[in-house]
């Protein structure tokens, strides 16, 4: 007596089908599980047996064999509890065959169905293969939010059995869940003074540009960075799903959250934590958790150089390849890079008020850590100065809401061209002649490097979009050049 169910594994943040085959034989009682299960999956045996008993159904006292296929795909987590249970019940004729339905969910010993981590993956497979999917009712809105998915929620194994006995065709699938706005983020109104840094943050948000802020400790670089989330446009539903699936692959739950992710790894984070990896099934790293959002590297100069070098591929291609037993696996990692650094080890280099007391050799070494290739990846480089005592009591800064409104307008213009300006094809920039001449002059006399010139031209397009200008004019280009201040190795 044989039956099968379909479930989901996440590979590189992408949903792949897993066949759950169940066979109930004639030999004496035993329960075997094969197909590269990890410990959590192996323990499913005990949970399934208890949950079936709790649902008031007889667990077959025969040889039960469960196989997860394809066998070469490593399988982990507790999402296979429900498909294993339903596969066994189908094989022992307690319920009708499952056909193609995708099933995901963890079982509690009392038979309750817990969400597990792959509700989005179930929805994606359901839509792609035009089959129904069965998940915990607490997350059915997530599965149903995928266009084309037919999702059914159950809160217990008994409810799943009833539903399947009734036939999925006779029941209406669930409605898509409402998008979730993440926790409230601090407002830019809290920041007094800092006119230049505020402008840089707005332009960076509008074009999705990479921004480096440098300045003495306590000048508010981190405060500014954390507030970018409040002025970025919310994620499209499909992008929110993409991000949530990457989080799921890393073993973290993120519902249908449309607030862009903001990740801020510490400089002591390992390379695997940063870009992904790990033994067995590779897990996405911070660069992928920040997919469609912001990766903030505070104290940039403290990050090991070799770690920073690994950011090159995701910054250029929007994906990161993680080595994996003879092959490599790609995780999406299209993030906006924000970074902050002190200008020198003591922090006061270039500060008008307090002398820097770093020895020249140390100063040079520190500043050259953020040099050449790395500095060229930033579209905007801005000095964040100390706020004058008088400004602490000055008027509050502009609030986030009106800035977010301008940013959203600028994004609309970019999406009509097809992509955000971070990835702008420079041929599409529509530059006026004076604008082109200005940037050529800046490169010619060393104010900008050649690569810096390309970055500036993308930023100029964003500034034009903020002004709703069709063509990049000279003053847009000039401001973009002004927003890419020097960072010399001295």
């Amino acid at each position, binding site marked *: 007596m044989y039956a099968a169910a379909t479930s989901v594994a996440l590979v590189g943040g992408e949903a792949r089908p897993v066949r759950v085959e169940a066979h109930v034989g004639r030999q004496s009682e035993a329960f075997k599980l094969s197909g590269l299960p990890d410990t959590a999956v192996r323990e499913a045996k005990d949970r399934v047996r208890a949950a079936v008993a709790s649902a008031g159904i007889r667990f077959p006292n025969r040889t039960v064999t469960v196989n997860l296929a394809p066998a070469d795909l490593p399988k982990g987590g507790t999402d296979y509890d429900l498909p294993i249970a339903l596969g066994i019940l189908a094989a022992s004729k307690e319920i009708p065959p499952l056909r193609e339905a995708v099933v995901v969910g963890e079982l509690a010993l009392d038979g309750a169905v817990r969400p597990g981590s792959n509700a989005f993956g179930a929805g994606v497979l359901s839509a792609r293969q035009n089959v129904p999917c069965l998940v915990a009712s607490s997350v059915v809105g997530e599965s149903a939010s995928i266009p084309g998915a037919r999702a059914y929620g159950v809160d217990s194994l008994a409810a799943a059995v009833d539903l399947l006995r009734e036939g999925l065709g006779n029941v209406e699938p669930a409605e898509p869940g409402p998008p979730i706005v993440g926790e409230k983020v601090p407002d830019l109104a809290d920041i007094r003074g800092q*006119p230049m840094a505020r*402008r840089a943050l707005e332009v960076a948000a509008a074009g999705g540009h990479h921004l480096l802020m440098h*300045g003495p400790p306590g000048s508010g670089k981190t405060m500014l960075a954390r507030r970018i989330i409040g002025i970025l446009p919310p994620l499209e539903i499909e992008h929110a799903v993409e991000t949530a699936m990457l989080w799921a692959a890393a073993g973290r739950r993120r519902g249908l959250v449309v607030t862009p992710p903001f990740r801020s790894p510490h400089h002591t984070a390992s390379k695997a934590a940063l870009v992904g990896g790990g033994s067995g099934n590779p897990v996405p790293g911070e660069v992928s958790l920040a997919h469609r959002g912001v990766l903030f590297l505070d104290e940039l100069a403290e990050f090991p150089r070799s770690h920073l070098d690994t950011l090159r591929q995701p910054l250029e291609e929007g994906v990161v390849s993680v080595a994996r037993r003879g092959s490599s696996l790609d995780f999406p990692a299209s993030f906006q890079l924000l970074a902050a650094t002190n200008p020198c080890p003591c922090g006061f280099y*270039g500060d008008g008020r307090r002398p820097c007391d770093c020895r020249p050799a140390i100063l040079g070494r520190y500043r050259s850590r953020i040099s050449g290739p790395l500095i060229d990846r930033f579209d905007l480089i801005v000095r964040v100065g100390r706020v004058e005592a008088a400004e602490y009591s000055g008027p509050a800064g502009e609030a986030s809401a009106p800035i977010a409104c301008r940013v959203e307008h600028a994004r609309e213009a970019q999406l009509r061209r097809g992509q955000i300006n971070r990835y702008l094809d420079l041929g599409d920039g529509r530059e006026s002649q004076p604008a082109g001449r200005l940037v050529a*002059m800046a490169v010619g006399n060393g104010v900008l490097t050649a690569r810096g010139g390309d970055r500036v031209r993308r930023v100029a397009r964003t500034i034009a979009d903020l002004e709703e200008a069709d063509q990049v004019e000279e003053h847009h280009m000039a*401001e973009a050049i002004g927003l890419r201040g020097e960072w010399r190795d001295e």
Partner: protein
Amino acid sequence: MNDVRVMAPDGPDYPMGLLDLEDPPHLYVIGETTTAPAVAVVGTRRCTRYGLNLADAFGHGLSRAGWTTVSGLARGIDAAAHRGTLRGEGSAVAVLGSGVDVVYPIENADLYRAILRSGGAILSEYPPGTRPDRWRFPARNRIIAGISSAVVVVEAGEKGGALITARLAAELGRPVFVVPGDIDRPASIGCNRLIRDGAHPVLGADDLLAELELILGKPPNHVPPSEGVIPATGLAFDDLPSIWECTPAEALARLARMEIAGEARRVGDLVLPGSG
């Protein structure tokens, strides 16, 4: 590098205020002196962040309004007052207790040069080469008091040079302004006593400017920085929009054009004139 001049009490450009002293000394000078009325900003070397911020704010406010400021190039309050003055593109005068060519403390060497670059002056009654002996400093304070039309004490402990300057200024009939502080804070004990003894408390740079105008009249006319030209002392990057009276976006664009033309360069918080 800079010529040292000597000014005698009977000379034409000798500061008038010093003639109020019992023994007007000969003065050694580097840089430009003016006869415009000046305001001294003095205080202790053992100051707090509170004092540093206010000394800087007073130096800045006074120089923006058009006053020349005087201080002693010492650590702490003195240095902050000088720096604030330079930031405000004003004229700074430093009165030393050593020879005018002897920089003490050495950490203020940059400040010493910045004062000269900005068109300020270094004064002393001691001949060039004189070492900074401790006993010379109280005598230097009577020059600060004499040369100034008013004295502001930002922070002062129980005793110290700033209190001597304040007493001498009061004896010469100069108004003495004092910044109040917490009554149990060592760096404010002297200040609070001066207030108890009748000095004017000041509640900020604007308050000080208003009081000065009442007592001394309008400051000598201040010439605002001309458009597009960056003074040798530089402008603070974040102040550009307010100085140029434009939006941050316009200020960034203008700065970029000046950088490309070689008329400006950024160094830390400052924008300096081009090196060429």
